[in-house]
């Protein structure tokens, strides 16, 4: 492997970073360490300060307080060296939408120092690797969302950076494109790149990241592996829809016996929600309902949503109602 991940150095070591816009402390004292060769997931709702943090770490914004070393170089005093080892895929298309995919990649290859010929062949290789050969000559503004994200990432690895920042790489993508992007990220890390990514989805952080930091109002409110984080939140929840009000009441009694938590009940939707530790307990619960001859119309097992993580960590909601319930949705016919 070509990368210098032999040492146990950190790719990012930030101490007490602060960024103010006017009176607002948008990033309010963030300290974090990202080991080389790992994926760090930065999780937070809209406006939490994710992009602002990334921009500081990528030399685009000067921190008002605090300091950081990125790939061993001081962020403020050695910005040029930092720039040589990093790459940024911004939250919004970070290529020139008026140009074709090929032209964009040539542009960047030339700007990092490739010769004319070298730039062309590098661009072609990248297009091939990202499955964009057919769209090479098309303007990026005519790409689909998934293709855009791929060309964005391709543009970021023209020189295989040691550290790649990805700002919400999968927001707005359908599940297939999202999986493609995940595969690409995993492949990058296998080749020694360190990845720092932001996301609004716990599931994404869970799938990809070695460590997760949860940010809210500019502060890191929790940090750890996804396991640690989920343990602090509770593993997941089981949602059951019943056919009749009578069955709903009975089902509630049964489920309540299985847990210490309060079972949430919604009589209008004929729905029960219960926090449950794992899939085995969930299966046990469902089979007990079935044994009692109760009519289940539909049930699903979901990971805790970002909302729930926040509820647990901060005692308040994010104001979003998105959840990742489709993890193992099963329809039951009668």
């Amino acid at each position, binding site marked *: 492997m070509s990368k210098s991940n032999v040492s146990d150095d950190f790719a990012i070591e930030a101490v007490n970073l602060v960024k103010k816009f006017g009176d607002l402390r948008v990033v309010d004292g963030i300290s974090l360490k990202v080991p080389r060769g790992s994926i760090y997931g930065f999780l937070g709702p809209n406006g939490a300060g994710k992009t602002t943090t990334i921009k500081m770490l990528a030399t685009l914004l000067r921190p008002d307080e605090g300091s950081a070393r990125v790939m061993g170089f001081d962020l403020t005093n050695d910005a040029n060296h930092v720039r040589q080892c990093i790459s940024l895929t911004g939250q919004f*298309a970070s290529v020139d939408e008026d140009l074709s995919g090929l032209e964009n990649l040539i542009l*960047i290859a030339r700007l990092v120092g490739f010769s004319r010929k070298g730039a062309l062949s590098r661009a072609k290789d990248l297009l091939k690797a990202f499955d964009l050969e057919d769209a090479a000559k098309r303007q990026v503004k005519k790409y689909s969302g998934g293709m855009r994200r791929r060309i964005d990432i391709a543009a970021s690895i023209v020189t295989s950076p040691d550290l790649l920042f990805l700002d919400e790489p999968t927001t707005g993508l359908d599940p297939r494109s999202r999986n493609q992007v995940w595969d690409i990220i995993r492949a990058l890390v296998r080749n020694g790149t360190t990845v720092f990514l932001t996301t609004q989805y716990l599931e994404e952080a869970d799938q990809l990241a070695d460590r997760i930091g949860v940010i809210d109002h500019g502060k890191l409110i929790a940090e750890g592996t996804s396991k640690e984080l989920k343990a602090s939140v509770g593993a997941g929840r089981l949602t059951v829809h019943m056919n009749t009000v009578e069955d709903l009441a009975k089902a509630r009694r049964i489920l309540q016996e299985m847990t210490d938590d309060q079972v949430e009940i919604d009589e209008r939707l004929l729905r029960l929600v219960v926090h449950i530790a794992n899939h085995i307990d969930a299966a046990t619960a469902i089979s007990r309902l079935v044994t009692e001859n109760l009519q289940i119309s539909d049930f699903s097992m979901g990971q805790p949503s970002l909302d729930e993580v926040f509820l647990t960590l901060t005692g308040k909601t994010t104001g979003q109602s998105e959840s990742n319930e489709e993890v193992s949705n099963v329809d039951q016919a009668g």
Partner: protein
Amino acid sequence: MSTKQDDYPDLHKVLILTQRPRRPGPLSASLTLGWRALLKIKYVPEQLFDVTAFPVIFLLMFTYLFGGAIAGSTGEYLDFVLPGILVMSVTMITMYTGMDLNKDIQKGIFDRLRTLPFWRPAALVGALLVDAVRYLLASTIMITLGYILGFRPGNGFGGLALGVLLLLIFAFSLSWIWTFLSLVVRTEKALMGISMLILFPLTFLSSVLVDTSTMPEWLQSIVDVNPITLVVDAVRGWVHGTVTNQEIYTVLIVSLGIIVVFAPLTMYKYRNKN
């Protein structure tokens, strides 16, 4: 979930790049970014409309509207006014440099470029190089049309060429003001508004359309220190062979002064843009 390596079989290959090329020189980086601006013209040729239409409309309008009234005959007036309108058109077109940059800033490409390790000013110098092409195009169109209408440079085409060159230098310096503004002003509309606010009085309160000696004295004293007047006088002088060294130096010094002030300001803002 598909986590197999073979989803992107070539990905592994492109990722093993042991050698990082050396960062490009300032000239190479500027030319590359100039190439980008040229490509944009290729995709959106309509943006050349301003460059071609402005000069044509201005020339026809002013020649026939004012020609009879101001100079007695349109032919004579054309010889006088063409260098003026040339300066006016090119000056107006310089605004677009700022607007293009402003559009970039609102998109992610601006941040991407700023994380690449090339010579910072190249992003602006490259764009300005291509703008020079636009200015040249506008000048050529106007001079050609003028020639058809009866314009004859008294100093031959050599003088005309030198006049245009002087104008390009001035336009280049002026562009730095717009690039600076585009980094300070938030929206494209606001930028357009401010640019117009500066340019309109400057171009009309100048010697573009009329000889300053016909103006009331108080106005004359304002108009005579207007940089546009200085440029118009010098260009007109080159075209008709009456230019003095002092006129040339004044324009060069004004241009240099603008660059010395606004280029560092622009670069400072470019580096520290939020």
